[in-house]
């Protein structure tokens, strides 16, 4: 029988609905910026990025809102930008004239833009990267392109529903080089259904040639991942094909590491290979858990310990940004939390060749009162030869890159407040 009258009290505070609470008054400066362009010519079947075929031509409205969003963080950009990454979607689909407006805006907002050390990457598709666009980009400060090659085998491209001719990749890279864009990456995908190790060696062979001739200085090679809610995963479930065995996938990975290092592209992250000095500094910002700003629908940011993701819906994003004068409606907001941050540093840092500053890690663990738990886990992983500490940096032993997730999960679990 209830004697309690029970007055309803809602537990848990209201979450901020847009980025204003994170960005206004955040201690700047922030030196990295990610911009998301959501348009694609066709939706690839494996893709789970926020992108769509823009039948209604919303480029104009998109650009307008993007500029508002950039202006709203002008204070945080006062210290200048060191890296900019424009991803998508297919940024090269954006009309050159709109690109011009975006680049001009950056020039206006950011003191000294584009400064000497800037790394400014734009993702391109082989078929949409026109000479005109690339010239506009280059003159606005863009000095790096990332080209979605994925495979040089037409039948595998077809499996991925990726619409381009293999030969276009090299052509597009040359056009970019001619336009004066000095650094060039290609993305490759392996472990595609029906792909044999010989097929993959062929792709690697072409990629290595591009590296040898200097057309690329960086390669990202990803195992095909069946993301939820993609056509590819749907087809897999329907039995249209079978996923590659993980032993084959592991062999393909090892093959990639070997062949790419033979042409001077060293692994500096699980799936990323670069000529020394050509590592993508923007992506290193992510792996080092440093700060960056985000603009565009679905773009994620990390500022002053808070993480968020702009709504992954163009209409809602435009509406919200226009209404608030530049602050996007946000989801997945995570406010600063020392435990979470430290776990993230492990998760991200472990993926890289440079690893994690062990001393900083231990200090962080000590503050959370879990240094002993961390130490215990490290000792156990070291004893099994999975991790090592070199020059004060904790990192995976080379063969353990294939086991990165399990190792990260163990170390992250050790980071639990008051575990000691």
């Amino acid at each position, binding site marked *: 029988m209830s004697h309690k009258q029970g007055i309803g009290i809602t537990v848990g505070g209201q979450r901020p609905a847009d980025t204003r609470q994170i960005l206004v008054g955040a201690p700047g400066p922030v030196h990295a910026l990610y911009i998301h362009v959501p348009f694609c010519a066709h939706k690839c079947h494996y893709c789970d990025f926020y992108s769509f075929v823009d039948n209604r031509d919303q480029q104009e409205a998109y650009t307008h809102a993007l500029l508002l969003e950039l202006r709203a963080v002008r204070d945080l950009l006062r210290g200048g930008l060191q890296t900019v990454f424009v991803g998508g979607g297919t940024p090269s689909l954006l009309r050159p004239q709109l690109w011009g407006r975006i680049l001009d805006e950056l020039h206006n907002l950011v003191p000294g833009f584009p400064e000497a050390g800037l790394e400014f990457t734009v993702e391109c598709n082989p078929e949409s990267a026109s000479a005109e666009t690339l010239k506009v980009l280059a003159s606005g400060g863009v000095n790096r392109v990332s080209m979605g090659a994925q495979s040089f085998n037409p039948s595998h491209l077809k499996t991925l529903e990726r619409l381009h001719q293999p030969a276009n990749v090299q052509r597009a890279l040359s056009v970019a080089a001619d336009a004066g864009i000095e650094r060039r990456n290609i993305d490759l995908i392996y472990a595609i259904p029906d792909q044999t190790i010989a097929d993959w060696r062929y792709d690697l062979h072409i990629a290595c040639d591009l590296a040898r001739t200097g057309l690329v200085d960086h390669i990202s090679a990803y195992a095909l991942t069946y993301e939820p809610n993609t056509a590819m995963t749907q087809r897999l479930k329907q039995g249209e094909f079978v996923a590659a065995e993980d032993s084959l996938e592991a062999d393909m990975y090892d093959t990639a590491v070997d062949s790419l290092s033979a042409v001077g592209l060293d692994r500096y992250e699980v799936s990323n290979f670069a000529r020394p000095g050509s590592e993508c500094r923007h992506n290193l910002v992510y792996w080092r858990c440093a700060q960056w700003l985000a603009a565009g629908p679905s773009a994620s940011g990390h500022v002053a310990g808070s993480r968020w993701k702009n709504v992954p819906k163009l209409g809602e994003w435009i509406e919200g940004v226009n209404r608030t004068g530049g602050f996007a409606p946000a989801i997945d907001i995570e406010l600063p939390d020392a435990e979470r941050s430290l776990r993230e540093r492990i998760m991200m840092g472990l993926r890289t060749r440079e690893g994690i500053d062990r001393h900083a890690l231990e200090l962080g663990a000590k503050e959370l009162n879990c240094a002993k738990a961390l130490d215990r886990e490290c000792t156990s992983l070291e004893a099994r030869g999975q991790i090592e500490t070199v020059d004060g940096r904790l990192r995976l032993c080379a063969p353990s890159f294939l086991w990165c997730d399990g190792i990260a*999960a163990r170390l992250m679990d050790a980071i639990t407040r008051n575990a000691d």
Partner: protein
Amino acid sequence: MEIRNFSIIAHIDHGKSTLSDRLLQSTNAVSEREARQQFLDDMDLERERGITIKASAVTVRHAVDGVEYMLNFIDTPGHVDFTYEVSRALTACEGAVLVVDSTQGVEAQTIANAYLAINQDLEIIPVVNKIDLPSAQPDEVAMEIEQALGFPAEDAIYCSAKTGQGIQELLDRICRQLPPPRAPQTKKLRALIFDSHYDDYRGVVIYVRVFDGHLNHGDKVRMMGTGRTYIITELGKYTPKPEKVKSFGPGETGYLIASIKTLKDVRVGDTITIDNDPAEEPLPGYEEPHQMVFCDFYPATSTEKGSDFEELREAVEKLSLNDASFTFHPVHSEALGFGFRCGFLGLLHMDIIQERLDREGGVEVVQTAPTVTYELKTRDGVVHEITNPADLPDGSLWEELREPICKVELIIPTDNVGDIMPLCLGRRGIYKQQQLISETRTMIDFEMPLAEIIYDFYDKLKSMTRGYGTMDYEIIRFQADRLVKVDILVNGDIVEALSFIAHKDNADKRGRVLLTRLKDQIDRHQFEIPLQAVIGGKVIARETIKSMRKNVTAKCYGGDVTRKRKLLEKQKKGKKKMKSIGSVEIPQEAFMAVLDQGE
């Protein structure tokens, strides 16, 4: 003043709580605003599940024909597992209001509860509820009540607990139709304990119904069964706010407090009398609750007998303070370490306890698959109670192994009889009888081993009848059958918690199904893991979990951090609910896989 003691009985969701509220409100015991709360339901958990667990009593007043009545209204739970609690509440009553939802009709627990009341010679008032709903079919439902239970359709009261329609008539009928309490048979006090609960502030609160004599504040009373004595420090009634009173006379119902420390000191069914002027004989008592379903709880985080075990002990003890029908004792398992073997009245009872452990106890537990109690007669003629398959000795020592058999009563749409028959027969059910209770619905009786219904039977029944089927069960006897014990070896080691008892005819199949399930649930390791099912040393099924070559996310950039972190934490959180057996980590779910019948 005239007194009437009654209960409301119903199938779940037919509106018992709502009707209770409405009755309280109509007798002005409760204001509109208060009525919005469901008074007779306690604890959040019950509200969430919408099930009443604790019986309690409320006293209200009503006048009819110029006479004033004191109505003692005794609450009962409505679920199949709590039949026992219903019966003890009913003993304190002379009458019962049987509520049937006019959109659903008679269901399995309508029948089960009605029979409990009939067996106790209670006067029953049938009520057809929810007549405000467009889909109500009051006449048809009244007819169903007549066909299934024999109460004339024209006697049923049509009402809506929601709008209040028919409520006055119901109150009048309760006063006019229900018999008064029986006349006292002695001057000496005899009060029946029909429920008790634990209150964090006041300790144990006991609900009593006085049959003979008087009970006064300050009396030194004796519980005739246990012989314990206590001084009454408070007597009262809920109206529904607690109101203290000085004394209860014959026929009255209320609560008492007497600085009793734990529920274990109180036996429901016991008779209270005056210590220095005792009654000669106690009132006819009730049965003790009998635990029929058992499972183990182990702390998820450690296998050592350390702080986690102590935390679990505390949590389990605390729960048992509130629930005298839940039992526990410490156990040790090779694979899982130190934990507790717990007994429950039924499956729902088990779910509720497990949820409360998680929620209130703050301890993460690994739970083993529920099993039933067996009786083992060994060759030396001794009968042992076996609540854990792992405790079974070698088959050569058995004379016979007996299992609990239930009478299962199903009420289902007649169209589904063809689906439900094979389900029951496949679970070793023995068909007893079948009766049409309306044009579209059929009541079927089966006898079935409890072990066959403790998992997934109810869910299957529900899904095969698109939610319309209902069931009730009651254990009627123990019976020997050709039962065997199946052991499971993981990487060569026997995992006791995965052992199960099955009928010889389907033990092989169950073994195979279990291995397939384990294969799905145990993560691949860096080495190959053989799985075997064994009966008496003979391997009846095998499977292999292949080794894993990699575990790495290909892409991880700025936008992936949150999702990826949660995945890794979950991967590990799942792992927390894992037990290492040798070098193999077995997740919690795998222990429940034992129950899969592979239908």
